């Protein structure tokens, strides 16, 4: 049994048991370690990826659920760091330890794809599933607003 899907626009195939979480298929089978394991229980958001444009917790998404779907990970934002969110993250020097930031970026990217002028409440709603133990929240908030402004101009 294998599951076919797309990752960052390219075809991918998983041979793991079909109930294996997408997170571990990405990390151990496809070698894409940008997506992180934090809690294994959809509590911390470190594993956030997009499935057909929606932010999901890949630690709770069996790979069977993404058959035929489009998965996007942090590696697909832009390897060259030129997505408006990456640009803003670098401008504000958001990351500290950095471990949660892939998930933060993917949650923020899903938010901005639908709403390029988010209020503080919108940001709270979209981002409160992502724990940052280093407490980079003030900078994440500032960077999201900055990136949103860039996207509105584009």
């Amino acid at each position, binding site marked *: 049994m294998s599951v076919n899907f797309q990752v960052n626009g390219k075809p991918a195939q998983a041979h*793991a*048991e079909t109930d*294996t*979480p997408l997170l*571990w298929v990405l990390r*151990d*089978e496809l*070698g*894409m*370690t*940008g*997506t*992180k*394991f*934090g*809690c*294994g*229980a959809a*509590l*911390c958001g*470190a594993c956030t990826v997009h499935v057909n444009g929606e932010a999901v917790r890949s630690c709770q998404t069996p790979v069977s659920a993404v058959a035929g779907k489009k998965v996007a*990970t*942090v*590696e697909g*934002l*832009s*390897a*060259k*760091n030129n997505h408006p969110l*990456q640009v803003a*993250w*670098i401008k504000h*020097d*958001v*990351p*500290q*330890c*950095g*471990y*949660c*930031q*892939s998930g933060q970026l993917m949650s923020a990217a899903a938010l901005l794809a639908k709403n390029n002028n988010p209020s503080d409440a919108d*940001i*709270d*709603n979209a*981002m*409160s*599933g*992502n*724990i*940052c*133990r*280093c*407490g*980079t*929240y*003030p*900078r*994440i*908030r500032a960077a999201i607003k900055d990136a949103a402004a860039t996207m509105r101009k584009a």
Partner: protein
Amino acid sequence: MTEIQTSRRSFLKTSATATGGLLMAVNLPGTLGQAMAAGTVSTPNAWVHIADDNTITILSAHSEMGQGVHTSMPMLVAEELNVDLSQIKVVDAPPGEAYVNALLGAQITGGSTSVRGSWEKLRVAGAQVREMLVSAAAAEWKVDRAQIKADKGMLIGPNGKKATYGAMAAAASKLPVPEKPAIKDPKDFRIVGKRTKRVDTPAKTNGTAEFGIDVKLPGMVYATIVQCPVIGGKVKSFDGAQAKAMPGVQAVVQVSDGVAVVADSWWRAKKAAEKLSIQWDEGSVASISDASMLEGNRAAAKSGKVIPIIASKGDVAKAIQGAAKVLEAEYISPMQSHSPLEPMNFTAHVQGNKALLIGPTQFQQGAQGAVAGALGLKPEDITLKTTFLGGGFGRRLELDFVVQAAEISKAVGKPVKLVWTREEDMTHDYYRPMGVNHLKAGLDASGMPVGLHFKVTSQSVTQRAFGLPKETLDPFMAEAAVTGYNVPNTQHDLVIHDTGFRVGYWRAVSHSMNAFANESFVDEMAKAAGQDPYAYRMKMLEGKPRYANVLKLAAEKAGWGKALPKGRARGIALMEGYDSYMAQVAEVSLNKDGSVKVHKVTVAADVGHMVNPDTVEAQLQSSIIFGMGAVLKHQITMKNGRVQETNFAAYEPVRMYEAPQIDIVLVKSTEKPGGIGEPGTAVAAPAIANAVAALTGKRVRRLPLTADAIRQA
């Protein structure tokens, strides 16, 4: 505080020598060989590697766990080496005597010591290499050294003579290392003290940063471990047949701390580990609960051996006896877990007498020494590489997971990446110990204290970790015990109570409990005196300009005394820690469910000389938010020796919607640098508790400060 700080600094070295404990001083022979360059690499000293293609690599003895050392450490070297930060690469130093943190006596990242310990050392290191390069060029060109400038990786001499640092590096490395090279006056700094972009940010925004959990080695297999639900318990017997029969499983291995399952993917190892059947010898901890720990601490506070923290001043008993008013209070800080977001992990490859260890550690020599001890290897046969740390907060000073990885690799004869589940991580931490503080003060007729008795009762991490002899002062328990306030009669006591449970150094260590008690109590004294808590503090700070200055700056910036919307109140707190002075003002209200909403924290900090002011601000934001979680939300509880909180639902860090606005005032200072990774965590607790007391009239003396705690106060 000076004598306490001195004892804290010299402590680990002394203790290691005395006990022959964990510290393994290892000199790696030859070049360190990590420079990220092709061609020949020269190593003028332990800190700078220069390749002949002019690739310059600076080694960081401190692990990057978010605190920005991969930027701040190279900034100090680059300042004197006269290179731009964009011209250098930074790598983690291997274990080695050259990289020992003089403030802690071991190669440790912790105690907010990185900048304090490196401030002069790394500038001297940069200057040494610069002078050696200049000397090499002078010899080659047969000109006077004074005619040569070293700038931005180039050596420039008279008559158009030019060479890259790389071209002169081999010759320079053969020269004697100058002991006292000239270093700049801070007013001439071009790099240090300037807001500087972190060098590690780009890798952390596109998924390429390598954390321990991301390590890959050829032929590597994956492992997870099941440890006794009672920490310290041992495997009595186990049945691994069902686990072994699961897909992809290669081995089921008993190691010192439990049973590990090894498979061809981590998920398969984890699924199989659920099938293990293990009988445990739970050991003595099985009879402990957090309630029994509290009772034990309280009993010890009454009858345990009293260790003076600092010489008493005057006669406290007499002063309190003759006081117009006497105040007494008990404050309780619960256990806390570190819970860095990257679960414990390490990768090991043991081959015969040699081992390769790769992963996130705050204690390189310790990791090397512990694995050497466990496996019977020589430390010099163990290569250790440090990755990025997905948070540390003190948890990665511990070595349990490193030894486990090595034991598993030895058993299966392959490279192994061991990754714990979050549940293993949260229930097998080395917890911030519970602390019970008793304070007693006598106030005179004007309401000012004439006598103050401080007593903290808690458990010693240093006894466990470094073999501190019993009934001696553990300086890591006495932090922030002595405040800056002028009180004529004072006594500061420590009682060490060993609960039998496993404790560790947590962000801000004992500052976190002592500052909560001290600064809550000052507010209680001010209230008893009918005085404003800010003005009351100021009255006791005559001749303490750095304390008074940050208190004033924070109060002004926060609009202390100005009207607030109905339902809001402010609280203030002050502390010196890690040579940094800090005041915070928290502005709070209550949510509908009675829990505390922190709207804003204003912080003023005098940290002396700064290396990267942007990082100082980031660490203030970070430490305050980290502290807020412990103040308002989480604690570790225990029943029958089992930690009850297993994941982020029960132990929930602060989330985005709870994060306050943080306003920062930094004092321009030319004092020696202070540490800034930790003190903010400690000051957040009393600032918030004092704001809640001002708002509700209720004093919560036991953390966390939840809606229930306020209702019951």
